């Protein structure tokens, strides 16, 4: 084979390869499913598997909050086995496995089954303490940030981080920046809009911004839920109640009455709201 034939052969193969690549590329979009639309390297690499990591990191944040005193999946399974399905998360009337770990260690571990079990507990975290004071709560934040990085569409991660940043660590700017990041990833989230409204009102006392944000939250709520049901009324009621409080505190009693009236329709205890409405109506002539 001459040098010319080799060169021509290589050129032909190269042309064929480029042609095939151009033909295959648009078709491969369909084969790769959601990964073809991946907007980050993590999604491309892990696909939907990143959600598993995100949940793991979120649990890790809870583990840190309880200073490592936390039931493993085996402890939770044991609680479910011994106390019935569903009991594993509410052993002590708490909402999370970490909260269920309150009090004595026997609450989630049970009594030691054998000598190895008894010995092993000396090498595990046995004291249940919370991260409190000295801004130690900040220790959970890297995991929440990582969780949001792995699954940006999980609103809970932004809300939890914002709560700790704003309420416990006094980092209002950081909380707002993180919530805005969450809003960019979840533009229709009524929860994030509501939290941004709380931040605007409770931390910055910016009534107009809070109003706009809660209006947006309400619109997002209706866009997501459509109609009010027994299961979804709490979140709407919360938006309206905060809006009503804002109007009350800024002296807009007419608007406050209007919002409290709507809250009354959603509340499981309308009589308490009715009392509040009566007080406001009494104040109304004075205000006018």
């Amino acid at each position, binding site marked *: 084979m001459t040098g010319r034939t080799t060169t021509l052969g290589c050129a032909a193969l190269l042309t064929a390869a480029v042609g095939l690549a151009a033909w295959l590329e648009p078709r491969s979009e369909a084969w790769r499913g959601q990964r073809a639309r991946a907007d980050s390297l993590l999604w491309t690499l892990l696909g939907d598997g990143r959600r598993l990591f995100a949940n793991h990191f979120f649990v890790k944040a809870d583990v840190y909050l309880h200073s490592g005193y936390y039931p493993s999946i085996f402890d939770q399974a044991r609680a479910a086995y011994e106390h019935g399905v569903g009991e594993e998360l509410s052993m002590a009337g708490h909402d999370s496995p970490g909260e269920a770990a309150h009090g004595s260690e026997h609450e989630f571990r049970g009594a030691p089954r054998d000598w190895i079990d008894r*010995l092993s507990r000396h090498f595990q975290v046995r004291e249940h303490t919370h991260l409190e004071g000295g801004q130690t709560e900040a220790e959970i934040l890297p995991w929440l940030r990582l969780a949001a990085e792995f699954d940006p569409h999980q609103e809970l991660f932004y809300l939890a981080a914002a709560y700790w940043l704003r309420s416990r660590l006094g*980092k209002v700017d950081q909380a707002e920046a993180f919530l805005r990041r969450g809003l960019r990833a979840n533009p229709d989230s009524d929860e994030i809009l509501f939290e941004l409204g709380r931040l605007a009102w409770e931390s910055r006392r910016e009534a107009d911004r809070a109003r706009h944000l809660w209006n947006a939250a309400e619109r997002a709520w209706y866009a997501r839920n459509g109609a009010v049901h027994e299961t979804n009324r709490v979140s709407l009621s919360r938006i309206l109640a905060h809006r009503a409080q804002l109007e009350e505190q800024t002296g807009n009693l007419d608007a406050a009455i209007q919002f409290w009236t709507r809250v009354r329709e959603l509340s499981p205890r309308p009589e308490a709201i009715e009392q509040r409405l009566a007080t406001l109506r009494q104040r109304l002539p004075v205000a006018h």
Partner: protein
Amino acid sequence: MRTWLALAWVVVKELYRRKDFYVLFVLTALITLLSGSVTFFEDTRMVRYLREVTLLLIWVAALVIAVVTAARQIPAERESRTIFPLLAKPVTRGQVVLGKFFGVWLATGLALVMFYGFYLLVGVWQAAPGSLALGLQALWLHWVMLAVVIAMAILGSLLFSAPSVNSTVCLVVVGGILLVAGHLNTLAAAQPGWAGSLLYGLYFALPHLELFDVRDLMIHEHAPVAVGPFLVATLYAAVYAALLLLVAWWVFRRKALST
């Protein structure tokens, strides 16, 4: 005693001549320093996540060093045929097994001192060094746990055909023990009949390497382990290591060394 000490010293010298330790140490240091340079929410006081990352890397690196070094000891002697002049001297097979074991154990001990020293430096850098007593306990417990792993790898090197097979099997077994062994009694209690008995048997037979993992105590700044359980754990590891070495010696004694 002098014989197996001489054998052990050769193994220690071999470790610091090889690149494995240096590569793993640099990798651990690099990842730790990179993790430490990241700031979350403009807050520089977060140290626990960094402790977690560093300790995880130390555990992985130490396991790899221990298993890989132990797994190649006897096969390398056989492959290079240096086992024949060695056994032609007044050295018994038991002394070879013991010498190799102590050599790898001492070498991994030196590596651990370096790793935990680095961990301490990272703590000082982050202004949160943690409890020194707990740090020393963690180092000791880690080292005695590795004694069991090394004994297991030496036994494996006499049973499996290649060091790579032995290393893989050992790492999988040790990983499995660390993750699941402590919960086998819970699983056994939930299984009726023979399956439960089998799991219980396995639970008592397996060396509970997870006992020696006190990383959570270090990360979350809890008190050191009480002296009693600490000594019992040391004895527990010594018994398992001795048992595995005894079996290794028995297998080695019966093994024909083809020329």
